[in-house]
């Protein structure tokens, strides 16, 4: 697709001569942007518009319902219904708890590991990076299946090891759901973020570090006073995508909800609520309204995060 556009564009571009005119770059920019925005329109803008449209309607039946539903205009009724539903609101509290647990663990953990990798004492750096990164290649579905097994009391060597170590913990209980999901997400994404942090650490000017060492800075001081401030832009980037990723939380809790014994409910996160409304209760209007609300919250949150990071002078 792209090569075609480039081909026709080139002949056109050749007719005008070398000087960079505004029109010429305008045409080039348009030609390069068109394929993406055409697809973006088809696969995102139109569906979103459609979702907003759907969110304004509801289906009504009568009697025993044998004759099927009629679609009727519902105004903002689906929005008030979603907001008025405790299950939907609870989903956001769950997410808040999830973020409170997950984000510090993820960002802190990835930072510590990458700083350790960056010290002169670390060995086999390539191996460690790769080993930490590999879970990222595992589909969420399979990751959830693996961890369900590793959470199952009576089967899991991990649970029994924890028990014999005196820290018995039931990942399937209602207190255990949050740690259980956080752990799966951590497992999937830790290495990814370590690689990002480590690569930025590698980019830190070596002479700077040497100078600090000559000045007598130890490893701790090197890490906290020099390295971390220097990779703040990566830190903000990771933070932003971790927050957005948290809002998308879906596959792993869904698999845990079905047939594992976990106390994860069918409307545990807002996304699951939308899924359940659309696909289990066939309430498409409500599902669309819930989805629109989730997207709004996501937009708001990322706005806040980027604002926060911009003010700090970091650039992604």
């Amino acid at each position, binding site marked *: 697709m792209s090569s075609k556009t480039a081909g026709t564009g*080139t002949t056109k571009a050749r007719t005008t001569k070398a000087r960079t005119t505004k029109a010429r770059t305008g045409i080039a920019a348009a030609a390069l942007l068109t394929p993406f925005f055409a697809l973006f329109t088809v696969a995102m803008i*139109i569906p979103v518009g459609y979702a907003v449209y759907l969110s304004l309607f509801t289906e009504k039946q009568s009697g025993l319902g044998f004759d099927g539903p009629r679609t009727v205009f519902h105004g903002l009724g689906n929005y008030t219904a979603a907001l008025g539903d405790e299950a939907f609101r609870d989903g956001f509290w769950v997410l808040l708890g999830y973020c409170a647990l997950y984000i510090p663990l993820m960002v802190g953990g990835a930072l510590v590991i990458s700083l350790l990798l960056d010290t002169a004492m670390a060995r086999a750096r*390539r191996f460690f990076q790769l080993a930490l990164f590999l879970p*990222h290649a595992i589909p969420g579905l399979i990751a959830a299946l693996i961890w369900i097994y590793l959470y199952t009391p009576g089967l899991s060597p991990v649970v029994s090891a924890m028990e014999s170590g005196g820290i018995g913990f039931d990942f399937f209980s209602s207190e255990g759901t949050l740690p259980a999901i956080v752990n799966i997400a951590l497992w999937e994404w830790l290495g990814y973020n370590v690689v990002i942090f480590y690569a930025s650490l*590698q980019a830190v000017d070596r002479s700077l570090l040497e100078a*600090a060492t*000559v000045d007598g800075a130890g*490893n701790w001081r090197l890490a906290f006073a020099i390295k971390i401030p220097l990779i703040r832009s*990566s830190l903000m980037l990771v933070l932003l995508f971790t927050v957005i990723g948290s809002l998308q939380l879906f596959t792993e809790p869904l698999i845990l909800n079905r047939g594992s014994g976990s106390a994860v409910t069918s409307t545990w996160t807002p996304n699951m609520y939308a899924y359940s409304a659309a696909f289990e209760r066939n309430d498409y209007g409500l599902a669309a309204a819930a989805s629109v609300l989730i997207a709004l919250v996501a937009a708001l949150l990322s706005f806040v995060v980027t604002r926060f990071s911009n003010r700090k002078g970091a650039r992604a």
Partner: protein
Amino acid sequence: MTSPTVVDPTAQLQTPNHRTGRAPVPAGRPTANRWLSKTAVNGVLLIAAVYTLFPLIWLVTAATKDAGNLLGGDVFSFEGFDLGHNLSELTSYQDGIYFQWYGNSLLYAGIGALGCSLVSVAAGYAFDKYRFRGKEKLFALVLLGVLLPSTALSLPLYLLAVETGTVNTYWSVLIPALVNPFGVYLARIFSAGYIPDEALEAARIDGAGELRAFWSIGLRMIMPGFVTIFLFQFTAIWNNFFLPLVMLSDRELYPLSLGLFNWHSNANADPTFYPMVVTGSLLAVTPLIIAFVTLQRHWKAGLTAGSVK
């Protein structure tokens, strides 16, 4: 590392502040202490690696087991070794439909990721190298796309596919896979980092058209970024089961992920599916793992949102 040196643009800005601070800690430490910290550092790294690797080991050992030992025995062993049987089940079930799925996945992920990377790089390049009206607003629109929950899009996409008669065809899965706003975001950063404006200027002076400059110079220079976007989009398409689940009903068109999800859902009532799911999963992640191992250089370089010096 042989990858291009990646430098964080903020690094230089901050330099002076920290040089002025004098550290009170005296240089030079006892060797015993040093040995201790070395052990500690590598010990922590080792623990982290064990944490990420041992579930993968589970996948390998579990794939060798029959249903009984998988669900009852000690999975981290090779007791009840039945890999041959599991593999033959996989090949023989419904005339080897599994490998048809495998082929489909290669098709969806291969073409989808290739198309997506090209389209994203073209757009990212345009965002980086050109100035036009409403650019940042347009870019913000792209970023908003990153935020949309995929579950929110699937139902409208399905209804649209029905309207256009593309439901239950390759297109219904392939076209949405070509779009990844995050890819454009990355491509813009890569373009800034990998393609120096001087190189383009030189091409222009040589008389190359704008699109030719992109095609023969820009695209070549941004290759590590291209590979990164390709690799991550490939993984995303390969692992996505939700969109195919909504779109496809013809088994012949299924990607692996959906086929495995189907089997997993069946395993609930028929545990003989369990070994097929697990063995199938192992085979499914193998190409991804190989790709990530062999292309390490590229994605590691690509992952850093920095710039080439």
